[in-house]
């Protein structure tokens, strides 16, 4: 229980730091909010007036206070460029991103774990070499390259899958999956390769442990030894690595969503950066960092569930 409380308090502190960093970095972005609002109608007097009314002349700390206050009370302001209120906009886009991030993570885990275990069981044999080589190639290909290849093959070549667009699963679950499949694969293939490598490494270590020998000495069959005794111990570490990859995925979606015209958080953040839509940049960067942190928190809590050793400490 105190573990949970500590973890949550620590999360609060990290969130606070995230907000400070986000705010600071976005405030040194060239071009200011006032100019972005006025655009081609900018003239010095009007700009000065607008800056005053937007509070841009206040000390940074006051501006930060106003911003974080707004974020906390749910008043995330409006996008300068798109004029939409930011909070519902982010929610909508996060839904799209969550779809492909979760989808790709599931694809990656479902394939990587058995493959990694299989490679570890056959360590240094051809099975291992094949799986390890394939995953090495996998982690070496940039995800947008995967994306391009997938588009060429499945959308252009075979015409099996649509190459773009996001469909809300609430509207059309089948359509949503079809549209999310290619971007998820583009994200997931590299991830799968990475997780295969991690699973293999973890399992190799575990299979050399004494308790595995003990399990064999008990006369348990090899399947039980590997898939129950071994894998149960690998779940935690593999999950942690997978959790850390959520951060990587949220970086990759910037490229992949733009490639697949999949309008999620990555796309939105990129658009916001391109347009210097500072309130939107601040909110989306903050939300991404918070989601990444949250994902890791969830993984940590799940770890507690799968590894009894952490429960007490």
């Amino acid at each position, binding site marked *: 229980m105190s573990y949970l409380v500590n973890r949550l308090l620590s999360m609060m502190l990290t969130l606070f730091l995230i907000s400070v960093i986000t705010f600071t970095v976005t405030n040194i972005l*060239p*071009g200011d909010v006032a*100019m*972005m*609002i006025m*655009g*081609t*109608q*900018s003239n010095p007097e009007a700009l000065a007036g607008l800056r005053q009314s937007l509070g841009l002349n206040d000390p940074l700390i006051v501006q930060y206070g106003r911003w974080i206050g707004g974020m906390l009370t749910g008043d995330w302001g409006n996008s*300068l*460029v*798109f*004029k*939409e209120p930011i909070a519902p*906009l982010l929610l*909508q*886009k996060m839904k799209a991103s969550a779809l492909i991030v979760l989808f790709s993570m599931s694809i990656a885990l479902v394939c990587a774990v058995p493959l990694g275990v299989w490679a570890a069981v056959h360590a240094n044999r051809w099975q291992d070499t094949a799986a390890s080589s394939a995953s090495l190639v996998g982690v070496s290909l940039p995800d947008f390259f995967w994306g391009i290849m997938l588009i060429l093959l499945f*959308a*252009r070549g075979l*015409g099996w899958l*649509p*190459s*773009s*667009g*996001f469909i*809300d699963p609430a509207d059309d679950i089948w359509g949503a999956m079809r549209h999310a499949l290619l971007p998820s694969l583009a994200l997931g293939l590299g991830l799968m390769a990475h997780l295969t490598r991690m699973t293999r490494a973890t399992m190799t270590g575990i299979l050399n442990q004494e308790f595995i020998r003990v399990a064999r000495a008990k006369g348990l069959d090899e399947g039980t030894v590997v898939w129950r005794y071994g894998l149960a111990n690998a779940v935690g570490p593999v999950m942690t690595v997978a959790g850390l990859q959520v951060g990587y995925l949220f970086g990759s979606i910037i490229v992949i969503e733009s*490639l*697949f*015209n999949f*309008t999620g958080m990555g*796309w*939105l953040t990129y*658009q916001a*950066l*391109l*347009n*210097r*839509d500072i309130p939107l940049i601040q909110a989306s960067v903050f939300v991404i960092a918070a989601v990444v942190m949250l994902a890791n928190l969830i993984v940590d809590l799940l770890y507690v569930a799968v590894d009894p050793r952490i429960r007490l400490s």
Partner: protein
Amino acid sequence: MKRRDFLKTTTALMGGTILYGAPAMAASHSAPVTGGTLIWGHSETTQNLDMHQTGTASTGRVLQNVHDSIVTVDKDLKVIPNLAESFEQSEDGLVYTFKLRPGVMFHNGKTMTSADVKFSFDRCRNPDTGAVNFEVFNNVASIETPDDLTVIITLGQVNAPFLSRLAENGAGVIMPEGSGEVQGTTPIGCGPFKFVRREFGNEVELERFDDYWGGPAYLDKVIAREITEPTVRLTGLRTGELHMINDIPADRIAEIEADPNLQVVAWFPLNWDFVNFNHDYEPFKNPKVREAFDYMIDKEVLLEGALWGQGKTTASPSYPTSASYNAALTQRPQDIEKAKALLSEAGYGPGDLKVVFKATTNYPYHIEAAQIMLEWFRMAGVDASIEQLTWADWLSQCWVDKDFQITMMNFFTLWEPDFLYYSLWNTEGAFNYRKISNPMVDELTAKARVTVDPAERAEVYKQVQQVVHDETLDVVLWFRNGTIGAQPTVMGLDTIVHPNGSNLRFHKVWLAA
């Protein structure tokens, strides 16, 4: 704010709409059918949906179907009645009287009255609204509504382009009274389609408005999928996911035209491009240097290279069929040796001149063009490099701060010459971001404003063009084509392009079963 083809609001243009594809030609003679949902692969992301506030062509293209303006233009760019049944201009040109069409319904079920017109115009001219076109109403002294169907606008001083500017939704749009708050997210107008929803960055859904004053449209719905990747858009069209797309990738037009299963609508011109020099940058203060750069550019090759030939080179930015178009002007041919000679005359030997070309990624073909020009600049001994800027950075650096050496921009074909030449080249011009200050141009553009005779006025503008060309104030490159690709089932495409060349109208478009 304001993305691709900004300033389209100041424009109206028309051009030849050409339809390719035999099936479309044949079927277009059959009787229209009602029903069906048209899925349109829209090339851009809609932004702020408030017709007053938005300056983007992308948003206007969609809202064209939601809103209607008080007057409009026909294909000859003549202002004609629209929501106003008739209009009158007083002798002195200061008082405009509009008689409104009775029984025009808004999407919210209310009937349009003069109060709505006053509301709309007042909203637009109120600086707090942040309307892009607020300056159209700069000279308006009063707006009176003697009865429900009459609106009288009195100007403080003559403003020749006033009526023309009202022919666009940007300034002339009529919104129901009191709807200002919701326009940004759920626009309400009296156009042929109702706005249903927008999934931001993803799609906009429009639904037929059965009470449209001009008669109901044929399509049940129009869904505008926002697909910014050109190849993705094209794939969507080919696989049948999309009924139509705008802005076919330039390199693929010939291919699509040749495809018997698809039809292509092409029109000319969509917009025009020019290369800009910062006249405050020391080397470019010398007209010889500017001329030298003009000589470095092979306009035909550049058009081919950047736009795959989808356009036509021109030395004049005037609308090609307009009276002010100076056909006598010809572009300077490429002559690297001459360019070098001019540069050394100006005191710049090979390698002495160092320039940065700022191009915006918002127009990918500008990046291509800049790369091609860079090769020529280098051949002429100029040490040039490119800086790619996002639209926002281009706006702030080049447009507002005027911090650039060479850049490139495009504008919608401005058929109103005062607006075109005064804004762009007069020292006081609103769009003079190149810090141009040419006494001749200043004098001529001022003179044109008080020249009443159209022919004489056109002559003055031709002189302006001559100066712009002789002094190489900018290098005018070409007019660009507009295109639409569609499935053969999409009918009525001959009506789809608005005379301004940017907006698409779905009122008369229908889907063959």
